[in-house]
Every structure is written in C-alpha cells, then in structure tokens.
C-alpha cells in the first residue's frame, strides 16, 4: 500500500486537486531541463510524500536532497531549491551558494517558494547578494489531503507563531487555501468562526472573495455549505488529554507522521535486525477505516472477535466439506489477513504502554484535572513529577491543563513551580516558560475560572460513557467530551446563537455570516440564464461542512466529528481542515525553544 492515500471516496473531488498539485510540481521539474539536484526542506519533503512518490521526481532527472546547513555534495550543475517561505531556510541557501562561489563552482540556481514568494525571504537573499544568481518561482501548494476527509495546511508552527510571535502569516495562508477550495467547489455560504484567529480568517476570506470573486455562474450549486472555523486557543484542554481512540493512541505513543507510523520491524513481526518499518495509516486500509475511531478498549475486542471467527471458519474448512462458493468466501476473508495481522501487531504494541500503572495513573490525573475540583491533589502530583524530573513535555502537558482549568495559578504557586522547573530542567527553559505564559497556557491567576460553568453547560464530563456502543462523543476520551467538538456540534445544528453566553466565556470573539447569492460578482447578474440557485442543495445529497481548526486538531477530535456525522438524523458530511495534526506532545513541543 502506498503512502499516498486513496481519495476516491472523498465527499468532494480531492483527487483532482491532488493531481493538479502533483502536475504543477512535475511541470516545475520538466521546465528545468536535464539533470538537476532538487533540494527540499525536510518538513516539506514529508508533506510532499502524500502527493507524489519520490520515484516520480527522480524520473524527471531530479537527484533528491534535504536542505540543511551543510553544503550539498552533487555533480549537478543545476540546483533547484524547493522550500517553504521561511526566513531561517534562506540562510542555508545563501551559505550553500556562497560555498559554491568560494570554490569557484558555477551552477544554475532555481528557488521555488511554497506556497508563494515572500518579500522578507527575498530581502535576505538580496542582502546576502545571491538574489541575482537565483531564478525564483512559486509552487502554490496550500493544502494536502491527508485522507478522504482530512486536509492539512501543513503549518506546524501556526499556533505558536500567532500567539507567541504575533506572526499571522498562517492566517492569510489558511484563508487563501479555503478560497482556493471555493474556486473548485463554489463559494461557501455560511461561515461561523470562534476565536481571534478564526474571525480574522473569515475576514480575510471575505476580502479575497471581493478581490477575486469566484465565478459562480459556471459552478452550479456550491458543494460545501458551511464553514466552521475554530481556534485551537479556544480549547487547549482537549489536546492536553491523552487520546483514547485507536488512531489517537497510535499518535500519542508512536507518533503518526504524514499518515504513517515508523517502528521497529520486529514489532510488525518482520525479523530484520534493527530495521525501521513505515506503516501507512489511512482509509485505504479497510480494517483501519473500521477501527481507527473506536475507543482502544473496543478495538482489542473487535480484533479478538475477528480472529476468533476466522479461526472458526478455518476449522470448518479443514474438517468439513464445503461448497465452492463457501470456499470462495473464505478465501475472500483470507485477503484481509495481512490487515488483521498488521493491526493485531500494532494493538499489542500499544497495549504494552496502556497496561502500565503509570499510564493509568496519568489518565486518573487528567480526569481529576478536567473535573477541576481537587486543586491540592493536582498541584502535588505535578510538583512531584518535577522533582522526579519526569520528561519535561509530560510535565508541561499536565501543567497546562492545570493552569487552564483553574484560569492560572495563584502567584505563590506559579512562582514556586516556575523556579522548580528551571532548577530541575535548566535555565534555558526560561524561554519555553515565557512562551507558554505569553500564550496564556501557564500563567498567574488573573480572574475566576470559567471552566466549571463551561464544563457543566456543554456537558463535557459524561458519567457512564458507553465506549462499546457510544451515543456521545465523550467515548473518545472515555468520559470527557472534547470542548472543541461540542462547539462544532452546536454550530452545525443551530449556529452560535443558542450558546452565545457560553462562547463569551471562552477566549476570542465569534462571528457568523451568511452570504447571499451572487452579490460578489455584479457583472454576471446581467447575463441571461443566471438564476439564484446557490441556496439549494441537490436532491439526495448530504450537505457538507468544512470544519477548520486553526492551531491543529487531534485524531480523537476527528474521530468525534466522524462519529457525529454518522449519527442518525445528521444529514451532513464533515471535512476537516487543520493547520496540522497535533497531540499534546507535539503542540507543547512547538513552544519549547
């Protein structure tokens, strides 16, 4: 199975969009004739693996390298840099070119920015006197389909850049990506946003629609009805909790990167000493599609049932005489055996983590923190973690959860924990703690906490959650319903109005707009034959909601959304857009300097 996921079952035609991106990249390579060295920045290269196979790039004469501070060793006379428009990467390129010049090497240099050229980057190239040596182009890749229903803008640092550095470049990028989608699928009529970044994106999107209207006349009915934008900042509680769905746990323990986990081959039952194995995880794997969103506890049961029934079939096949069609059925089932084996291996590996008392203790503590009714117990638990010098990120995850649910710590406790952290982990973490403070994630108490009110009003803690036959999204965290998805649930069902009072208790403003017909492109009103049909939804089609998380989304939240749309009486499909797939660990990591 390839890592490039199959998108045939996507609710909108994502295949064409991906093919287009692929074609654009190949065209860039084709236009630079002959042999060339393609130097890609490593993060981007991971993302590109979901669009194009490296063999395809090699077919067009490209020798592949990663962009690092080190000079590239190659015989090619043409160097093609493909990089995200980031300042620090410019320094690498400059030093490589300087290195060539000092050695008297004459090469042709091409620089393609993803997704577009950036004045600040080019300024550095100018200052370093390499600008005139470069042929500069753009590769307008604004998002990547991770799966049938998930798009990623691949902006790993979006959240941190916005809340700590005040750099809102990612917001323009997100708006542009959505606007690009509108060119393919029509103008989205309903836009609901919550959070500072989200309302800003809605705003920028509006401007883009005015500057470059989507030609509605030859588009027909818009395919996406509603856009919901949500800041990660609105709900930082959820990602700090340990995800308990299968896919979520895989990410928590093994790290899912670009739709695959990498682990020792021995875990997958392949005996190759010390070799790493990449296991793709997407809907092309039928069994994975079936179990990815389930609570891990249930996944174990499901796998056991499947194994049992297969064993039974096998016994029958080998002991009794069977008709040909029965044999055929059995063989068909056998085809799913590699998938079964794969997930049994993975699940077994996961259970070595989940059965540890320390894991169960941690879950207990998360529960206590979310309930936010035993301050001292939580404080002492975290203090002890610091004293034991447990991994810093693990500590910070709980600390952030603690700080949010209590709306900060009393000054005395705050100062104390800060000092203990610096003493235990080193003074270099001053920067990390400052970042967290700036982002409001670990701070001094400045007001009374709203958490209890929000928790109660939105029923975030659900007693007696049935993880086997769930009737609520709380199954993904075994009893805690993710705040973010509760908000989405309301936004889809009835808009913001009924929960406005609650929204006011959460960070950032909210907005709700409804677009009317063709207002954005006056010149087309005059053409005969244009009828205002934008509000209609084609017969028999489920309406489509695009939910965009600015600052990242966890697998468990995606699972909760899938659960919602699969519920009876919910006549909509959901597509998730996110700056990046995150978990508590990766999210905190962005704040660590």
């Amino acid at each position, binding site marked *: 199975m390839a890592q490039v996921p199959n998108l045939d079952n996507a609710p909108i035609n994502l295949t064409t969009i991906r093919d287009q991106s692929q074609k654009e990249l190949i*065209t860039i390579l*084709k*236009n630079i*004739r002959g042999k060339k060295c393609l130097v890609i920045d490593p993060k981007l290269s991971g993302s590109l693996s979901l669009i194009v196979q490296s063999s395809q790039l090699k077919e067009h004469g490209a020798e592949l390298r990663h962009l690092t501070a080190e000079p590239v060793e190659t015989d090619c006379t043409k160097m093609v840099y493909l990089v995200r428009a980031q*300042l*620090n990467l410019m*320094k690498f390129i400059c030093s490589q070119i300087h290195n060539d010049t000092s050695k008297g090497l004459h090469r042709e240099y091409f620089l393609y920015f993803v997704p577009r050229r*950036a*004045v*600040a980057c080019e*300024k*550095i190239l100018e*200052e370093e006197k390499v600008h005139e040596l470069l042929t500069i182009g753009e590769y307008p890749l604004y998002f990547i389909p991770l799966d049938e229903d998930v798009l990623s803008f691949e902006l790993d640092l979006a959240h941190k850049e916005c809340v700590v*550095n*005040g*750099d*809102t*470049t990612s917001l*323009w990028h997100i*708006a542009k990506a959505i606007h690009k989608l509108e060119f393919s699928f029509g103008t989205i009529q309903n836009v609901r946003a919550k959070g500072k970044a989200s309302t*800003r994106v809605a*705003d*920028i999107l509006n*401007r883009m629609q*005015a*500057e470059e*209207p989507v030609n509605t006349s030859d588009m027909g009915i818009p395919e996406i009805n509603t856009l919901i934008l949500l800041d990660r900042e609105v709900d930082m509680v959820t990602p700090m909790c340990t995800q308990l769905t299968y896919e979520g746990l895989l990410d928590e323990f093994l790290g899912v990167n670009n739709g695959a986990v990498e682990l020792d081959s021995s875990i997958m039952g392949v005996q190759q000493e010390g070799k790493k194995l990449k296991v793709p995880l997407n809907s092309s794997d039928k069994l994975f599609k079936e179990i990815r969103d389930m609570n891990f506890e249930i996944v*174990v049961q499901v796998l*056991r049932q499947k*194994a*049992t029934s297969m*064993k039974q079939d*096998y016994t029958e096949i080998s002991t009794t005489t069977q008709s040909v069609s029965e044999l055929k059925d059995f063989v068909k089932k056998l085809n799913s*055996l590699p998938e*079964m*084996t794969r997930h*049994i291996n993975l699940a*077994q590996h996961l*259970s070595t983590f989940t*059965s540890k*008392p320390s894991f*169960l203790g941690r879950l207990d503590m998360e529960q206590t923190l979310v309930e936010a009714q035993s301050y001292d117990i939580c404080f002492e638990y975290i*203090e002890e973690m*610091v*004293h034991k*010098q447990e991994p810093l990120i693990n500590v910070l995850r709980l600390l952030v959860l603690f700080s949010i649910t209590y709306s900060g710590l009393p000054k005395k406790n705050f100062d104390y924990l800060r000092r*203990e952290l*610096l*003493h*235990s*982990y*080193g*003074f270099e973490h*001053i*920067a990390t703690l400052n970042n967290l403070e700036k982002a409001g994630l670990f701070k001094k108490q400045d007001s009374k906490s709203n958490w209890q009110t929000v928790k109660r009003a939105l029923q975030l803690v659900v007693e007696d959650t049935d993880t086997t036959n769930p009737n609520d999204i709380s199954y993904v965290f075994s009893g805690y319903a993710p705040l973010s998805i509760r908000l989405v649930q309301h936004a889809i069902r009835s808009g913001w109005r009924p929960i406005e009072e609650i929204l006011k208790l959460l960070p950032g403003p909210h907005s709700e707009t409804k677009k009317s017909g063709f207002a954005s492109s*006056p*010149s*087309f009103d005059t*053409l*005969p034959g244009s009828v205002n049909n934008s509000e209609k939804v084609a017969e028999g089609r489920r309406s489509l909601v695009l939910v965009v998380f600015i600052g990242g989304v966890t697998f468990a939240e995606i699972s909760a959304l899938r659960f919602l749309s699969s519920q009876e009486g919910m006549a909509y499909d959901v597509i998730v857009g996110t700056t990046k797939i995150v978990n508590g660990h990766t999210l905190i990591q962005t704040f660590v300097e």
Partner: protein
Amino acid sequence: MAGVSVAAEWQLLYNRYYRKPELYQMQWKHVDLTRNKVACAPFGGPIAAIRDDAKIVQLFAESALRKLRIFTSSGRLISETVWKNPGGRLIGMSWSDDQILVCITQDGTVYSYDIHAELINTFSLGKECFESSVVECVFWGNGVVCINEAFGIFAVPDFKNPRAVKLADCNLEDLPHCIAVIEPQYTMSGNVEVLLGVGDHVLLVEEDGVQQLGVGIGPLQKMVVSRTGKLLASFTHDGRLLVISTDFSNIIFEYTCEADENLRLIRSSLPEAVEACIDAAGYEFDISQQRTLLRAASYGQAFCSQFQREHIQEMCKTLRVLNAVRHHEIGIPLSIQQYKLLTPSVLINRLINAHNYLLALRISEYLGINRLKICKGISYAAVATHADKNGRRKLAAMLVEHEPHSSKQIPLLLSIGEEDTALVKAIESGDTDLVYLVLFHIWQKRPSLEFFGTIQARPLARDLFINYAQCYKHEFLKDFFLSTGQLQDVAFLLWKESWELAKNPMASKGSPLHGPRTEEHAKLLRIQHDLEVTTKQAIFVDSSISDTIRTCIVLGNHRAAMKVKTEFKVSEKRWYWLKVFALATIRDWDALEKFSKEKRPPIGYRPFVEACVDADEKGEALKYITKLADPRERAEAYARIGMAKEAADAASQAKDGELLGRLKLTFAQNAAASSIFDTLRDRLSFQGVS
C-alpha cells in the same frame, strides 16, 4: 428589407443552413490585402496589416517605409507606426488572447505591440534561431511554435512567460509540408504538441519526444486543429478533405460545427414562436431585422399568458450593447454567442483599452455595473500611477482608494509616498507579505528612530519586524528595544544570545562565564566550572541544578552535592527525590538505607519504594513498603511488586472498598492484557500467516 431577400441569403450545406452577411463596408483606403501580411483578432477584434516584404514593390509606387497599421474590424485606423525593427523579414504576426500583437522576425526576435501600435516588449527565441533564421511560425491564443532553417522546432508555451523551449529533434531533411499546433490546454501532458506533415505521414513533436502518426495517410498540404483540440481537418495532395481525431485513431469525414438560425417561426405553438423570434433577433446583425423580429415577438407575447417577459427585455438590453459596439466607428462585430463567452466585463475592458472610454462608461452604467467598480479588469492602480506621473498626487491617492486588489494598491501607495496609509492598508489586508513590503520600504527611507516609532504603534508590523530582525538583523533589534524602552526585552535578547554563544563550542571555550545571565544562572555556571576543574570531568556545565546534584552524588561527592543544595536553597522534598534516585542509579542500597534512617524523610518513604521498584529490587522495596504510613499507599506498592495478598490486606485495613475493587481489577486486567494477545496469536497461527 423585403422578406424574399432574407430567405435568399441562406444556403443549405449538408443539413444546416448558413449565411454570410456583410457586416461592414471597410473604411480603409488603399489597403490591398494580397500585398499585406494581415493578422485578425477573433471576437470582432482589431486587424493588423503590414506590407509583405516578400512581395515585390513597384519603385516609388508607395513609400519605401513600411508601416504597421492597426484597424478596427470595420477598417477604421486605430494606430500606425513605422516598422524599423532590425532582424530581417517579418515571418509571423498574430494577436494573442489579451489582444497583444506578436510579431516574429527572421532572427528570432519577438516584438509585442498593444493596439495603439506601441512596442511593449521584445525578447529573443534564442541563439539557435538567431544563427539559423526562423522560416515559419504557428500561433495559438497564448503562444507560438517556430521552425528554423536548421529544422529546429521552438515553442514559447506562454507569452506571459517569454521564454523559448526547444522541442525534441525530429531529424527532418526538408521543411514539413504543413504545421499545426495543439494548444497546451488540450493536451494530456499539458505541454504544447506540434503536428508536422512530413512525407506521407504526420509527426507529433513534444518537448521530450517524437511520435509518428497516420502512416500512409498521404502527403498533407494543410492542417487545421479544431477549437477544442480534438479534431484535425486536413487537405491531402490529391484534393481530399479529411477530418481526423487529433490522436489519429479514427477518420471522421463530415464534421459541421456552427449552429443555427431559427426557422421555427412557422410552427404553430405560439410561445415557442415568440421565443424563437427573440432568439433570432439576438443572432441578427441587421438592426432593422432585429426590430422586425422583436416587434413580432412583442406582438405574439401579448397572446401568451405564461411568458417570461424578462426575456425580451433582456434581449433588448443585450442587443443595444451589441449594436453599439458593432457600429462601424467602434468596429467590434461580436456575435451574441461571442459576447456571452467574452462576458460584459471583458468587453468593457477592451473598449477602455481601445480608448473608447465614453462608450465603456455608458455600457457599464446601462448594465448597472457600479461605475467605480466597472469591472475587475480595470486597474485603478494603473490610472492612479498615471495621475501621479502628471503631478496630480491627490487625484492619484483618491483613485488608489478604489483599487480593490491590495497587492496592487499598496505598492502604488508606496510609490506616491503614502507610506503610512500603505502600512494601515497592508495590515488590514491580513497579508503579512504586504506588511513586510511596506516595512522594508519605510525602514530604508526613514531614519531608524522614526522607523521604530512608526512600527511600535502597530503590533503586527512590530512583531513581524522583531521576527525578521531576530533571524537576520540582531543588532537592529537591540536598538529597537532600547529606543522604545523595552529594557526587559533587551535583557532577554542578550541572554538568548549568550545561550546560543554557549551552544557553539568554539565560542564557549575559555569563557563559559561570559555574558549576562540571571544571577542564579551565573552562580550555577561558576560552581559547575569549579566542579569540572576539581573532578577533571567536563560534564557539569549547562546541566540543571538538579542534574548537578545528582551527578555529584553519583560521583560520590556528597559534600559538593550538599553545597549546591544550600547555595540554591533546594527544598528538602526535591533533595530527597534527587538523592534517592541518584543512589538507586548507582545501586548503592546500603547508602540508601542509611539515608532513609538519617531522619524521618519529609515526604515519607514513597520515593524509596519507587526507586527500588523501578530498579526491580523487590527485597529492597519491601524494607520501605512496611514503613509507608498510609495503608492505601502500602496496598498500591504491594500491588506494584505483584504481592496481591498483601495488597489486598493493606487495602482492607484501609477499609477502602473502592481501592480494593480497583486493585482486583488491576490484577485481573494485567493478567488479561498479557493473555489476550497470546490467544489472538494462537488463533491466527494457521497456515500462511507469520
């Protein structure tokens, strides 16, 4: 016009009627098309003509100077210019989709003119065309393919990106009989494909390959590709007309394209007839005929109860626009279909481009298009630049205000010196790239202090500046913080710099104490430095206080550990955890026991239990479990080393039913957890599975 003549205009061709109405009496004089090279733009666009220098001219019959002249479709001169370009003969001339006239000379130079005969761009097809003359070119809407004397084939795939690419070599020995081009938008590869009639077959040439097609089809004299790129009409040397699909998979002999005029008037159904009259009026070029048809429709409409009255009004509106632009003074003979394809906004744009401002304005008003947003094609930026050039800065500023594209508006504001407005607009647009653009502009133009003041007032600009300077221009950042009194930020910056310096081994050597850090941090570094000297081990610098304590204990240097503890007022709680874990690391169980007996541990014996359990020393752990005061903790500790009975006893002693239950469950779960997968494995261990 009499009814008879109307019918007589129509001719039957296969199963369709056609007619060829004369639209204009050409207004030009002394233009002999046979002696000129001519390029006509589609969609009723302009006509360019220039004397064909391949044809003989009678001496003194006309000026020796050649003029490039541009006419409207009705033959009214729009502009002219003397052709004095070097480069040999003019080989090809054609209008692009943007109504740019592209001319190619023998030496491979490409000249682009606008409709006012102003040269707007020049570029070369490259060295090979310069050395071996271009002999023929074939254009399409946005590009061109040329062949030179050396039979090399070159393509400019997109005039907007004026660069020639050489196509694959097809080893020709002679010029092809004929050439046709399939536009990039219709090919599978997305690149241009060239068809060459060579010998008795056709060669399909691309950037990276040549294919032979239609072998045996016979020498072709002429080929034309259909508008959709799917079909090819060709004329063979023996006088046959062939229509072939462009992949040469099958031959289609008959192909008709243009549809219709309505002759359904005779039908009995009245609404349909009315509809037909309106449609027919739309297709009609003759104004009196339009009138006749519309009057008939209007008459008939009165007898139809269910009729879309808007239709007739709409048609009247459209026809008034069409008739206005078809007028011979304007000379754009668009058909209604072309008009719909072109869209009103593009038409208005073309009128403006041809300096027909008044008509453009009237039409936009008539169609109810906002006068200030006439259409997306109009660039206020361009108008404003012009105003500014003529010294009318205020007008320019007003016009810029109307430019909807921030990416055009902001550079313009900068060019007319409105930096502050530009900054505000850039920030509003949400496009950080534009903010950077303004930022660098102001930075360059104004003295640092003034620049700092400007950005300090605008958070986004300030933050972007800080980000840039942090990455590239550190010294400016310090100046900025100092000038705006952000001393804490300066301190933090210097602190960070010193860290980076320390990380660099070259810089840190010799001066580990250099650089301003927090007082505490400086003290730690001093102690660590001393420790490295006394222990002769470079393992202390840059580790944390807790790490330093642990390392000292592991090295057996308890006095040093104690010193660090006192220096930094390390709490007893942390001290106990650190020392217990350090002793367990070196498995010094005696020292650990001694430590436990020093005094009553301030956080009880749990750290001792944990350290021993983690080190898998059950015997050692038991020593401390019994000392745990809380029966609950005791129960859990027993459980961790697998002593189920003791755990249960302790739990019942605590009279905590819930704990008891939980422990039982833990045991059950652990057992289950380990066995579940073994059973799974067993069940799957039949043939074929590993």
